[in-house]
């Protein structure tokens, strides 16, 4: 489980309070534009972006890139107990214990792994944001009630939470995504609520109120867009967490039972049994997970630095 998933209340509120602060001396340029400009100059951001785009490309064009059918079994006569053939003609990375081409499975696996990461994060962001907007816009009793609920969710270690939800929903890929999403909901709720509260007292919000603009319009047209930057940063970082968490749940036997869909986490979990025979079967999917997680983390960290002036070094 990534460290970034395990944010505590105070930390989240701290991050939230700094949303939308404009760095000194750059008042004239819009925040988005100045952030983009800083991102383009940041080598870390570029490395992160290249990694992410590369893997998205591989996932999108998997059928064209994969040399073989990821499910087709070959070289079966060569597989014996205690021996799995390695790299050879036509199988650049060798085959797995069922004779399926490892490279093709890795390429197809990027689809499933990225999809789990993206869908669970999007789900977590949507639900978390809905709760956060409710709490941030209404304040008062609604806020207290929602935040008590969110605090309870935050008080359960996220892997334990994901385990209970996957056990409850049964073993399938949707359960996996929902389980990961639920662990992210409280973080986004708290984050957005905090940054909306910080924005609500700002001059432009008060001015809009004085002009007699409807409350819903102030919330959705003014406060919300200005509160989004910490959410965007956290969402990028959460993509990394989600992919690693999916692998952990696969390892715990709570992953996608459909073996026809290659997925890095499941491949890694399955390969543990053959670790002393062919460690590559585990190492390659693990490398994919590490590199993708690294890509999202680098991108997220540099986004944070670009959007949040206090983080700059």
């Amino acid at each position, binding site marked *: 489980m990534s460290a970034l998933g395990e944010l505590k209340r105070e930390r989240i509120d701290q991050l939230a309070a700094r949303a939308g602060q404009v760095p000194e001396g750059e008042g004239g340029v819009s925040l988005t534009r100045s952030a983009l400009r800083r991102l383009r100059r940041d080598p870390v951001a570029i490395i992160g972006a290249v990694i992410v785009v590369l893997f998205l490309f591989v996932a999108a064009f998997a059928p064209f890139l994969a040399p073989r059918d990821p499910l087709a079994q070959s070289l079966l006569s060569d597989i014996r107990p205690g021996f799995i053939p390695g790299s050879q003609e036509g199988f650049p990375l060798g085959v797995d214990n069922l004779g399926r081409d490892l490279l093709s499975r890795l390429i197809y696996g990027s689809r499933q792994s990225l999809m789990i990461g993206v869908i669970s994060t999007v789900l977590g962001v949507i639900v978390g944001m809905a709760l956060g907007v409710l709490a941030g816009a209404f304040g008062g009793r609604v806020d207290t009630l929602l935040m*008590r609920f969110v605090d*309870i969710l935050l*008080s359960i270690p996220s892997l*334990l939470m994901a*385990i209970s939800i996957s056990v409850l929903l049964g073993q399938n890929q949707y359960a996996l995504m929902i389980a990961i999403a639920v662990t992210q909901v409280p973080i986004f709720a708290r984050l957005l609520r905090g940054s909306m509260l910080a924005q609500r007292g700002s001059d432009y919000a008060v001015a809009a109120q004085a002009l007699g603009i409807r409350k819903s319009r102030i919330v959705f047209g003014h406060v919300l867009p200005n509160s989004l930057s910490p959410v965007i940063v956290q969402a990028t970082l959460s993509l990394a967490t989600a992919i690693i968490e999916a692998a952990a749940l696969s*390892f*715990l036997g709570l992953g996608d039972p459909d073996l026809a869909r290659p997925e890095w986490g499941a491949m890694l979990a399955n390969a543990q049994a053959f670790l002393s025979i062919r460690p590559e079967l585990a190492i390659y999917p693990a490398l994919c*997970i590490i590199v993708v*997680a690294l890509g999202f983390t680098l991108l997220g960290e540099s986004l944070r630095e670009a959007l949040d002036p206090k983080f700059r*070094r």
Partner: protein
Amino acid sequence: MLRFIVRRLLQLIPILLGLSILLFAWLRALPGGPAQAALGERATPEAIARYNELFGLDEPLIVQYLRFLGRAVRLDFGTSARTGRPVTTEFLERMPGTIELTIFAMIFAIGVGIPLGYLAARKHGSWLDSASVIGSLLGVAIPVFFLAYLLRLVFAVELGWLPGSGRQDVRIDATRITNFYVLDGLLTREWDAAWDAVLHLILPAIALGTIPLAIIVRITRASVLDVVNEDYVRTANAKGLATSTVRRRHIIRNALLPVSTTIGLQTGLLLSGAVLTESVFSFGGVGSALYDAIFARDFAVLQGFILMLAVVYVLVNLLVDISYGLLDPRVRVR
């Protein structure tokens, strides 16, 4: 100070109540309900009805919840479907192992992390600095269980330097007092038993401690770099204090405040990581029991263990908060 502690303790009550409702609802929401969970998928409707009557599951939900709460307060979570033993007994027997592992992992993470982060900051821009930044990014991205398997494969299976499973060699006939194996060995002066338990802890502790290590290195480095540029450090240097004094009294002491916050935050992470690490090393703590319970769909154990672990997590966080109150008087005012 006392008022601060009491207020924090009172804040626990709604959190614990909420948790109990969630976990109560969890068992009810299982397909087929608790009866099916206990009797298996092929239970007849009559058997389910009898089970429901026997355990009062046909009564109104609120009555059932209050009864569940009453039992939970007395730490009664029923018996494990797999072993037939009370859930709480299993938990209490296994918790010392997990605590030991967590302590060793934290010793590793702090003992390596703070010096490394400090050195990286002092040699800002050097190869050591870059290596520690890259390493700390990698450390967070590696799936814990994969790292555990890798360590086990290399150092236990291939090289045979360290034991790769269990908490102690089965051939050692150690006396048990507290179930903290290292402590037991020290208390009974069975030095070989204590040493063997320590050896068994090394690999799991490294696997478990890697993520906190990565984070501690990062935070220490960042916070030392922050402090070095503070006015009071310049003042201290300007008034001619010895460099070592400035480092010890002004830089390190101030830089460690955010680090201590981070260390506190890692407890929940360690509990999660322990489930994964312990299962790889068949460690016999709470984590490996939880792992077995997932595969056996042992709901009583899952429910009881998750609730008790969450309570441990909340309590540890409380302790951490209280210790900040002691360390930094400003926290108390809030």
